[in-house]
């Protein structure tokens, strides 16, 4: 990683991961998936981003993935989320939430050990939290929740098998395991229900508390809300920067969203100053004067 990166200690695996900043080109792709409401492919794309933006050498749980994308959002797009809401039908003051505080809350409240060993006859199944951010059916969690399977003490290399093969293996497991997996899901759901991703402590109208639940799409939906922007505006920003700041589209695509914001706000500031100077010079009775620096004057 011979570029700027930042560290994050993952709350579940407790491993340290190095993360690079998100580029506009990938941010735009995320926005396309969000606007298509294509959760399945968004999840696949986010997994791809993990492979290019981090130095992970294992498949993390979905809560760890969630934290990586929170951090990526915080560093590359901005740490503050502003919520425009109403209270009792009237406009409420803007609510500001810091993404880092969500990560801190997860680090503080997650114990890190949700692994369980199930054994029957000569088969041992190790289960953990699910790995995928996209969870559409409870039965699909089965494939995701299994960390490793041992047959007569030999690991089968579960995650080295492809999806179809993993499914076939699960189908051949005794139904005892599914009953235990359901119990595991229920227990973890119960253990985590006190951890809130968002708490509506302002009692505003449109929002409810959001509970951390790794067994449904809430993590992905939460990320979608944090990343979502108007895609068309983003293309317009690219156009404006390419035209007026004389940068190439390739350069724009490789910029970080937060840098883009800085460029745009600087351009706006300069445009405003130019407009003010223009207005000032047109005022009647005013003549333009040369202004010299005061340096070296007594």
């Amino acid at each position, binding site marked *: 990683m011979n570029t700027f990166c930042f560290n994050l200690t993952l709350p579940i695996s407790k491993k340290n991961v190095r993360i690079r900043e998100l580029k506009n080109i990938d941010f735009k792709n995320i926005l396309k998936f969000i606007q298509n409401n294509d959760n399945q492919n968004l999840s696949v794309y986010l997994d791809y981003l993990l492979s290019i933006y981090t130095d992970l050498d294992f498949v993390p749980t979905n809560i760890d993935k969630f934290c990586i994308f929170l951090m990526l959002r915080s560093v590359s797009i901005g740490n503050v989320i502003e919520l425009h809401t109403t209270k009792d039908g009237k406009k409420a003051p803007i609510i500001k939430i810091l993404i880092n505080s969500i990560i801190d809350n997860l680090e503080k409240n997650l114990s890190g050990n949700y692994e369980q060993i199930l054994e029957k*006859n*000569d*088969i041992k199944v190790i289960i953990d939290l699910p790995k995928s951010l996209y969870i559409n059916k409870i*039965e699909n969690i*089965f494939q995701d929740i299994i960390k490793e399977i041992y*047959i*007569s003490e*030999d*690991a*089968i*290399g579960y995650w*080295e*098998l492809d999806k179809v*093969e993993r499914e*076939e*293996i*699960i*189908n*051949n*497991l*005794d*139904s*005892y*395991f*599914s*009953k235990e997996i359901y119990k595991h899901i229920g227990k973890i759901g119960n253990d985590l229900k006190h951890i809130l991703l968002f708490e509506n402590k302002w009692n505003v109208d449109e929002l409810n508390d959001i509970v951390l639940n790794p067994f449904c799409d809430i993590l992905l939906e939460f990320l979608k809300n944090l990343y979502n922007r108007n895609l068309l505006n983003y293309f317009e920003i690219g156009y404006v920067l390419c035209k007026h700041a004389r940068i190439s589209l390739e350069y724009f695509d490789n910029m970080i969203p937060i840098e883009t914001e800085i460029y745009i706000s600087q351009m706006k500031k300069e445009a405003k100053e130019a407009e003010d100077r223009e207005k000032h010079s047109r005022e009647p009775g005013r003549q333009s004067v040369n202004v010299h620096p005061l340096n070296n004057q007594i």
Partner: protein
Amino acid sequence: MPKDFKDIVSKLKQITQDKLNEVYIPSSKTIAKFVPFNIKQQKEVLNTISEGNSSPVEFAIVVLQSILENNVDKVPLLSIDRNSILLQMREQSISKTIKGIDSEQNELEINIRQIVEKINGEGLPELSKEVNYSTIKVSLNVPTIEHEINVNRGIKHLIGDGKDEKVKKIVGDIYIAELTKYVLAISVEGEDIEFHKLGIADKIAIISTFNHELSKEILDFASKVKQYEAEAEKITIGEVKYKIDLDVAFLG
């Protein structure tokens, strides 16, 4: 470490085959060996929830098919064996207890063995009977599991896409289709009708022509079988009656 996928699957299957459930079959009073239900079968049971109005029929088909698939020795099974088999397989594979609910919705952990012993000790209903009216002779019997699956498929076809309106219109047909499960053969004036070879619509058409007395005989026979089957879902502990649902949640 067996890295070869086929090797892994065959080892898994082998381990499962080595630990068979031994299940008492009430209709034949024998012990039969069954492979425990696997997760694939459980998923198929769960998927029946999404079948709309035909969901209970689909559930029955999937469960009966799983019983047939797992019946290692291919012992002949009747529909009345179903509940006892399910309870015994759950007892041996998943857990020895099950939740029962009383009339006031109080839950109690019930030992499955208690229910199994109750239904296995229960007097079986008549397994076959012949009823006559005038020149019509009808042979009734408790259906085999294969036959029950076939009739259920016919009922599912009748229900079709599961639209509520359609179900309301054909509810009478579904009721008669249930009765056809118990009819093995019919002869009229000494001439046999190969009833079991007919399609569901023809079977319904024939049973519909039966007069009240004949229909009542079939209904009485079927009711006794149903009553026996329902015993698997009831148990009295002390003076409290508990209900147990042998449904998707029981197997899922």
